[in-house]
């Protein structure tokens, strides 16, 4: 019975894939009063559906591990259905329905974690609902302009209309992707969510905000450029958005470096990555949108991979703080490779597709002549190396710092299979950077009526600014590596393996297990001494939102005083209101 249910669940988790393969034509479902839900699959939605199809079954695997939490599985299925509805939406109502189902089912999934606390869950749901309600408000404004709920471009909105719509939709999507002042809900919820589900939150759910952000400019194709004009070689309005994205990336990157918990680090890194995507959307050119989509693809693969690896580590060691881990490379080698490939992708290092994505975005920034943005983005993406290194050093290298880390074994196969598949995909896309362009991204660009990037072969990434060949790069590197290793081994001499992990060059001393040798927890702490970084790390929005919540509660207390328990007061108020209304009317000369 249980096995059958598991199998059923897994099949449902494949539903985005099945949908992608079998979907043709469209579907519609009446709601009320002439509102109909239309389901169609646009190329853009198809792209994000592909991402969902990649992530959903891979995240489902670890969730299926015994003993499994059945409510979680049900909620996960709901979440998947909601996201598919959102992506298939041909009208705003179904978009909103999908959005909301996604929101509350992911919230309830978050509650399944034993670590979720009140502040986290409240901030998660309130920010997401605020996003949803802003979206709904935008949809209603849009409806009042067009008279129906279809997702289509607005013919000629006036400036205030366009600004209102932009503000409502933009805020809704920016909350979802978590750009800067609106990101506060992300780190703690990604951290406290059930370990496997964090992968899905970061890898797939955040992509829905990106989908919205890319969809947004298509609603008013000309209006954006016409009312704000152009700045250098790109839309001026996008310049603002791009700065929002870049500042998000920079701040989130430094915050990520200062984290002491694996999942929190990944959460901040997720914010930073989505910040890049926001920047690319802000640039808005064909190159940039291709870059944004590519980044979304890579980010999905990488974050699912990393979160699942981390989930495996947490499962096997019971530790999640950097200071408590170490030297797992010998005990969990496959997870090590998972994280290694993951951080190479995350850092945007050349052989893997992260580089292709970043290359497109960089080139699009140069093309738009927005060089200061480029510089800031470089700052974020080089600072990212530090947290990437921290992420692999602290758990896997150095010295084991807790009993859990000393006795851990390799993660069970439901955690390893997704990792291996994702590593394979990352290497594949890295070898063939043109593959993703040709198969996944160009159809979307054509669908958005933009110039496709084009790929002369799958191995090549080509832009007007030049490109590179992934296969040649990988071959050169691989051959060089084999050659160097071979030559090295040909040299005469003994290789001697150190007798103990503590056989270190340590100023003539012999360190012992008690010597604090692991540098995991403190890594990046010295960055605070750089004035700018120190300033950034001292800032935070938590105080503001806590203050807001406090004010709200104070208002509730104040208003609650109205509800006294004395009937004479109730009657008095009723009479006074009556008298006051009459008196007011009399004063105004009515009587």
């Amino acid at each position: 019975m249980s096995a059958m249910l598991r199998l059923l669940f897994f099949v449902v988790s494949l539903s985005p894939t099945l949908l992608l393969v079998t979907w043709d034509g469209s579907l519609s479902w009446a709601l009320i009063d002439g509102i109909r839900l239309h389901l169609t699959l646009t190329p853009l939605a198809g792209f994000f559906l592909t991402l969902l199809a990649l992530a959903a079954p891979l995240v489902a695997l670890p969730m299926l591990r015994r003993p499994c939490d059945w409510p979680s599985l049900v909620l996960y299925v709901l979440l998947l259905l909601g996201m598919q509805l959102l992506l298939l939406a041909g009208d705003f109502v179904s978009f909103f329905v999908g959005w909301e189902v996604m929101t509350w089912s992911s919230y309830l999934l978050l509650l399944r974690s034993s670590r979720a606390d009140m502040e986290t869950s409240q901030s998660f749901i309130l920010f997401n609902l605020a996003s949803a309600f802003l979206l709904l408000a935008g949809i209603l404004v849009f409806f009042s302009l067009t008279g129906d709920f279809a997702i289509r471009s607005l013919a000629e909105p006036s400036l205030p209309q366009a600004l209102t719509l932009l503000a409502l939709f933009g805020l809704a999507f920016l909350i979802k992707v978590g750009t800067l002042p609106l990101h506060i809900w992300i780190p703690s919820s990604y951290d406290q969510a059930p370990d496997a589900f964090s992968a899905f939150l970061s890898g797939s759910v955040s992509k829905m905000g990106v989908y919205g952000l890319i969809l947004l400019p298509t609603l008013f194709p000309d209006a954006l450029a016409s009312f704000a004009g152009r700045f250098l070689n790109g839309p001026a309005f996008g310049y603002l958005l791009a700065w929002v994205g870049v500042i998000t990336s920079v701040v989130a990157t430094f915050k990520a470096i200062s984290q002491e918990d694996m999942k929190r680090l990944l959460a901040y890194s997720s914010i930073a990555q989505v910040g890049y995507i926001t920047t690319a959307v802000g640039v808005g050119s064909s190159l940039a949108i291709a870059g944004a989509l590519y980044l979304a693809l890579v980010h999905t693969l990488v974050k699912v991979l990393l979160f699942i690896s981390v989930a495996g580590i947490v499962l096997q060691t019971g530790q999640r703080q950097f200071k408590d881990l170490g030297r797992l490379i010998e005990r969990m080698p496959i997870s090590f490779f998972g994280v290694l490939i993951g951080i190479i992708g995350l850092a945007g290092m050349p052989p893997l597709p992260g580089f292709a994505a970043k290359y497109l975005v960089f080139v699009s920034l140069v093309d738009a002549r927005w060089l200061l943005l480029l510089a800031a983005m470089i700052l974020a993406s080089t600072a990212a190396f530090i947290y990437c290194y921290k992420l692999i050093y602290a758990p896997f290298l150095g010295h084991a710092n807790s009993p859990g880390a000393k006795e851990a074994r390799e993660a069970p196969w439901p955690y390893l299979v997704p990792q291996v598949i994702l590593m394979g995909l990352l290497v594949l896309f890295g070898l063939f950077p043109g593959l993703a362009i040709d198969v996944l991204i160009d159809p979307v660009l054509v669908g958005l009526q933009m110039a496709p990037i084009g790929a002369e072969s799958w191995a090549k990434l080509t832009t007007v600014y030049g490109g590179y060949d992934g296969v040649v790069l990988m071959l050169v590197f691989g051959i060089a590596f084999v050659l160097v290793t071979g030559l090295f081994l040909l040299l005469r001499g003994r290789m001697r393996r150190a007798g103990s992990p503590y056989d270190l060059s340590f100023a003539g001393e012999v360190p012992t297990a008690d010597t604090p040798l692991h540098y995991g927890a403190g890594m990046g702490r010295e960055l605070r001494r750089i004035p700018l970084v120190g300033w950034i790390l001292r800032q935070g929005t938590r105080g503001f939102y806590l203050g807001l919540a406090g004010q709200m509660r104070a208002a509730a207390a104040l208003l609650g005083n109205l509800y006294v328990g004395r009937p004479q007061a109730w009657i008095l108020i009723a009479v006074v209101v009556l008298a006051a209304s009459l008196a007011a009317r009399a004063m105004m000369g009515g009587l």
Partner: protein
Amino acid sequence: MMHAVVDSLAMIGVSYVMGFLFYGFYRQLNARIQRRWGPSIWQNFFDNMKFFFKSETLSHGPMFFFGPMIIMAGAFTTVLFVPFLKDSTWLQGFSQYGNLILIIYLLVVGPLGNALAVGSSGNPFGVMGVTRGLTRLMGLEVPFFLGLALVMLQHETSSVHAIMAAQDGLANWGIVTNPVAFVVILLPFIAAQNASPFDVVGAPVEVYAGPRVEFGGRLLGVLMTQNMMMSIAKLVLVVDLFLGGASNVLVLIAKAFSLFLLTTAISMVFPRLKTEQAVDFFWKVPLGIGVLAVILTVWLPSWSA
């Protein structure tokens, strides 16, 4: 195929020879400035060979062993993706398959691979050095990349070949047509070469040789080799971008040498900066110049147009 193999070997050879000779010269010059004789110009070669033929090498496990291999492969790849000559079929490597941004990233691949080896040795001083290195990288990349972006914007391409081809004649050299960009990248370039005053990463007395603390014997030889080759790759890259490239090896050596002389002259006379001082410096001075350059060369023309 044969051509590619021979060409690649030639590039690796040229960069290695240039590498140890330049560094030998550096040590000579340094000695003369300090009023001593200094070692022979071949000294770096001797040091390197000595390490390669050490009879014993300690390893801390497979990752520790593969780190130097990765960094060496990264150095080879970098060298092979930087075109050494223009208007020539030789010393091109695989540069037509790459571009400027790729090269900038390739420069970092190897050191990051080595950082894994440092981490797996478990020596905290090594990791401390790596962190300092990454922090410095974070500081220097911003102005460095901004300067290169100015060049990319000027030529509207990220292909090093195209940028080189556009600089025919002294008047069209990047350093003449885009001097601000050269100024912007100069100091970060010195830091990228791990030269004084930005050499706190491997400072012997401060972090116990930093990332290299556990490396000895042949592995250290590998690290030395890649360092020399990588330096040459960076020098050649700047020569390609700002000094019009070179049409034969002699011109290449001459140009690279003069650039090397310039950076050496700067780095000889300044004392070492702390990591955070260096980063702060990069974000204030070279980046400040860079921002000014962007405003002057990109914003103003677009507004006046």
